[in-house]
């Protein structure tokens, strides 16, 4: 449920460091389940500069509006446009097709402060 190669935030986002300083970001299995059917995603614009902890996207289920917070600081360099037409990808494949954005991380060391899979699992099981 919580792949070990990913890092996690307490706000239920996952982060995957790809080549160099590019980090792909999405929401966790736990988060998509809590939300229920996702029906709308408001994506950030490419080029947006974000600080860790900033709300930079919004995911809406039928009943709830949830802010998505940038787990790290940097610049949004790619967004998942497929979510505009198929927001349900977040429910169906939260770690794959349901990714939200790629951030070019300004300080890769920030990632060390995020939770490991094991730590995150402990958090959601509390």
């Amino acid at each position: 449920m919580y792949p070990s190669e990913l890092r996690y935030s307490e706000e239920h986002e996952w982060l995957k460091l790809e080549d160099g300083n590019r980090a792909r970001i999405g929401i966790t299995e736990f988060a998509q389940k809590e939300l229920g059917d996702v029906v709308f995603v408001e994506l950030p614009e490419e080029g947006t500069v974000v600080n860790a902890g900033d709300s930079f996207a919004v995911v809406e289920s039928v009943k709830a509006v949830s802010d998505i917070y940038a787990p790290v600081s940097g610049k949004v360099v790619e967004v998942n446009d497929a979510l505009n037409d198929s927001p349900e990808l977040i429910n169906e494949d939260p770690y794959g097709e349901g990714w939200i954005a790629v951030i070019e991380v300004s300080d890769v060391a920030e990632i060390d402060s995020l939770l490991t899979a094991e730590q995150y699992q402990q958090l959601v099981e509390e």
Partner: protein
Amino acid sequence: MLKRTPLNEVHKAAGAKMVEFGGWEMPVQYSGVLVEHRTVRTKAGMFDLSHMGELMVSGPDAMQALQAVTTNDLSTLEEGRAQYSILCLPNGGIIDDILVYRLPEGYLLVVNAANTEKDIKWLQEQLKGDVKLEDRSAETALIAVQGPLAEEILQKLTSISLDELYSFEWTSGDVAGVACMISRTGYTGEDGFELYFAAERAVKVWEALMEVGTPLGMVPVGLGARDTLRLEARLTLYGNDIDETTTPLEAGLGFFVKLDKPEFIGREALLAQREEGVPRRLVAFVMEGRGIPRKGYPIRDEQGNEIGVVTSGSFSPTLEKDIGMGYVKASLADAGSRIFIDIRGKYRPAEIIKGRFVQGHTRRRTG
């Protein structure tokens, strides 16, 4: 401590996600809001509504006493029929919206769960003459079966000829061997039934309906889809679209306010409002692009001036568009008008529509 319906354990066993609603622990969804919603529109869904309040008003003066506290005209309510009505404050604000059934022994008022205590207190104060008010909420279960296959499903469990029962009519009859009030009413915009019966039989009736309904595609439905279904049917929700600060005339419920009745609480205020014209109107609107309107979001005009507020909003699973309702300054509330919903600071265009978002299929008596 949250209150529980007699079906609480059944919902949990079925894997429902439970939430707090009006002091009750209720299922918000079982399989998922979207699939539950669509199944009600295409097949059938079953709802536990046992949290709603049932109040019996009887005695020689019951009819006169109720006439004085409700906006609709009870003198036109025949036995075997149900009537939508409203309890108003003297200033015209809405205390509750209710369903009134005429029974041989009196009138049964079905009230919103969160308002039950408040309504009882109000009625105790306001009902005049030789009248008895009984709270039957705890001993009454309420299960609704809604959707185009509702009649076929329910017919398997009762000897009553359901095709002779039309919208807003009810009859007494057994369902799965349990004595029920079978009412052709609902809150989804689809054809369907609401069954009132003894609370201790709730599990038996629920399970019998599941057994005959499941092969036809029926699913249990939670409060999540109940809300999106009623919104598509443009039915108001107490606490969202109507409350003590809104009047029935502002909410577009004027049809249920019979101002020619000689006397009822709120009449003077509503007469005056009709004379002067309402300051705002509850409108239904469809978003032009994507963006979900939510309760409390400001409504603006082209120039960005605030002209109203959203009271309900959702993604519409049937239209696959974002829809909502809200109050708009009366002069700007005509169907076809363009308004802007302030969604997190971005002004998104929407069009005010006439009528319902989705026209379901109901079975009305004609001629």
